[in-house]
């Protein structure tokens, strides 16, 4: 994928050294988590909505073949084109060929993580198409030749000064344009409005496709999603194959939890459902809307993940709540994850899509605290899948030798209690020998990783087992006594 990816240790070291990033992450994610709680709290029974949303995701994926086929039928019945792209190359080829054959010179784009996966912009530009990101954060990322660092807040890693410098360098911003954030936003609006006016093609993502109608839905706050799907003569919707719901009523259930989980809003400003190109004939002819509607259903490894133990990660509706709550993400930010999808969802998706070889550290970069599973609107059990990936890592020989050695020893000694107690006693004596005032300042070998930032306690003189043996024998009395609440 990305050949210039630095090693994981380096990526995280850079992030951990970036105090501005970590302060911003903490402030913003804390705020957003508060909004999320309030947003879900405004629903009378948010747990019931989430439970149903999960049931919908699970059921839909269990019949994905049927629903996608139904979707294709309906897209075509409404005069649109559907294309199943098994690989990233297939998806790119479809869009590039479409652009070339239709004389597309300028394409405007609204947010789509799938297009990041397949590097669509890069390939279209090689084919001579000017691609303009129109989502403000993505536009800035594009100007900076950077990558988004969060699913819903792409430039959380940048401050206003950096944006101002960028605007000055790339779009001739004057001082008046940069006086404050609203002014900078208005500058971007003017520049991008001209792009919309000239664009031949609009490329959008898909938050949810609807099988029963052949519709796609975009949820945005800025309005660029609506503009991309309305103004250009060709609209191409890029969709991960798993982003589908069976009916419009199901769509409304997912919409009820999506924005609240992401930003705490009841709904994003524009909940935009597109069904086919604009009608052009007779009395039904509409004044605006595209002449052509294409949906590219991108597989790119999703069917392989679907057929695995990791299928549950495909329930994801890309709200970003798991990122906002993850204490690891708070420290290392999005770029350190190295893939398109950061945070807990990325720690599963990236190795699942790209393989463990290049990304085996990601499932290890977690304390398994479970906060992600707690906040996920569809209750995805990310910790379970991280553990599965860790087991796969061990099987693939990716675990450090000293840990494997230690685990084998634990497994061997742990079924021999006398040996275990003897080894424990030995370790306890060793710690007491190394300690001053009951604490060790530097542990030997690999364990020195602990003492980089923490002291290690000397273990007790008398172990629990020894104390237990010395105790008076009240434990030999065994009475039948029931206590309140005790299960029989």
């Amino acid at each position, binding site marked *: 994928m990305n050949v210039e990816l630095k090693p994981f240790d380096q990526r995280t070291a850079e992030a951990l050294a970036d105090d501005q990033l970590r302060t911003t992450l903490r402030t913003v994610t804390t705020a957003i988590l508060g909004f999320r709680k309030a947003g879900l709290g405004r*629903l009378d029974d948010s747990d019931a909505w989430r439970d*149903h949303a999960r049931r919908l995701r699970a059921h839909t994926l*269990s019949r994905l073949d049927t629903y996608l086929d139904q979707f294709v039928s309906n897209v075509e019945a409404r005069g649109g084109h559907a294309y199943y792209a098994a690989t990233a190359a297939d998806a790119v080829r479809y869009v590039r060929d479409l652009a070339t054959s239709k004389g597309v010179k300028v394409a405007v784009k609204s947010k789509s993580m799938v297009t990041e996966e397949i590097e669509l912009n890069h390939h279209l530009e090689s084919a001579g198409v000017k691609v303009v990101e129109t989502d403000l954060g993505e536009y800035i990322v594009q100007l900076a030749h950077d990558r988004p660092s969060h699913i819903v807040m792409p430039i959380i890693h940048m401050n206003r000064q950096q944006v101002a410098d960028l605007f000055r360098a790339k779009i001739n911003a004057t001082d008046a344009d940069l006086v404050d954030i609203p002014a900078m*936003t208005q500058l971007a*609006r003017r520049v991008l*409005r001209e792009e919309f006016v000239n664009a031949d093609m609009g490329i959008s993502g898909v938050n949810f496709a609807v099988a029963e109608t052949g519709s796609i839905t975009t949820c945005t*706050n800025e309005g660029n999603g609506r503009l991309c799907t309305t103004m250009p003569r060709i609209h191409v919707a890029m969709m991960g194959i798993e982003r589908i719901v069976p009916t419009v009523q199901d769509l409304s259930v997912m919409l009820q939890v999506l924005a609240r989980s992401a930003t705490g809003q*009841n709904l994003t*400003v524009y909940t935009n459902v597109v069904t086919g190109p604009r009608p052009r004939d007779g009395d039904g002819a509409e004044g605006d809307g595209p002449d052509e509607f294409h949906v590219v259903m991108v597989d790119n490894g999703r069917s392989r993940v*679907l057929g695995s133990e990791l299928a549950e990660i495909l329930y994801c509706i890309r709200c970003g709540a798991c990122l906002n709550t993850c204490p690891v993400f708070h420290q290392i930010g999005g770029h350190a994850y190295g893939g398109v999808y950061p945070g807990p969802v990325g720690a599963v998706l990236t190795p699942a899509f790209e393989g463990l070889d290049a990304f085996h550290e990601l499932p290890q970069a977690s304390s398994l605290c479970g906060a992600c599973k707690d906040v996920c609107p569809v209750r995805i059990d990310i910790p379970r899948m991280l553990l599965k990936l860790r087991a796969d890592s061990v099987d693939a020989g990716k675990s450090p030798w000293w840990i494997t050695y230690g685990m084998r020893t634990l497994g061997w000694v742990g079924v021999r209690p006398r040996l275990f107690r003897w080894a424990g006693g030995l370790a306890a004596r060793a710690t007491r020998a190394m300690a001053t005032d009951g604490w060790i300042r530097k542990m030997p070998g690999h364990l020195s990783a602990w003492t980089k930032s923490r002291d290690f306690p000397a273990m007790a003189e008398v172990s629990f087992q020894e104390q237990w043996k010395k105790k008076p024998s009240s434990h030999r009395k065994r009475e039948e006594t029931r206590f309140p609440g005790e299960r029989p």
Partner: protein
Amino acid sequence: MTADERARMRDVLRSAVGQARLPGAELRHPGPFVRPSVDPKDLAERFTRELTALGGSVHEARGVADVVAIVRGLIPDREPKVMVWDERHLPLPGIGAALAAAGLTILTQEPATARSAQHRRELASASLGLTGADAALAQTGSLVLASGPGRGRLASLLPPVHVALVRRSALIGSLPELIASRPELVTQGANFVAITGPSRTADIEHVLARGVHGPRDVHAIFVD
């Protein structure tokens, strides 16, 4: 897609589904899920509260003259241009003539010329867009607009100010309730949009900025 392509797609997916570990998956569709949201007697009040909290405004008008006065007050330009939905889609007859009489230029959207950049720039120069609303959602303060002939999408999108004329009978609790009772709003047309307040972003330093691409100001006028 060709029949072959679809068959191949189905095969790949069916095979994957057969080996998938999908916790909680039921073979049958779990069915619909709707909950009552807002007490019917509170619909208008709740809608007003929600839209106002988002920075939008709610007005009342007792006739065309009121509407024109509100519109005129919102765009103090000397030669204001407005995009307006066709009268048959507005809940008050005679709006077009009244606006023209008040000195506003009404831009019309012709399908044939809709493509030219020049025409689009013209439309984009409008100061205000006036539409109706197919529904108003109280729980979220949203205006629901379905597209069609004479009721284009751009009127509620291009200009910096959007004004929607709303009948009180269009008020309903929430989006799930709306879709349960009137699914054809979504299923029949080429475009359905729920507009929940003014266009906004907080991409830069999480500071709120309005009117990024869509309107900076959203007004709902109850006309009955």
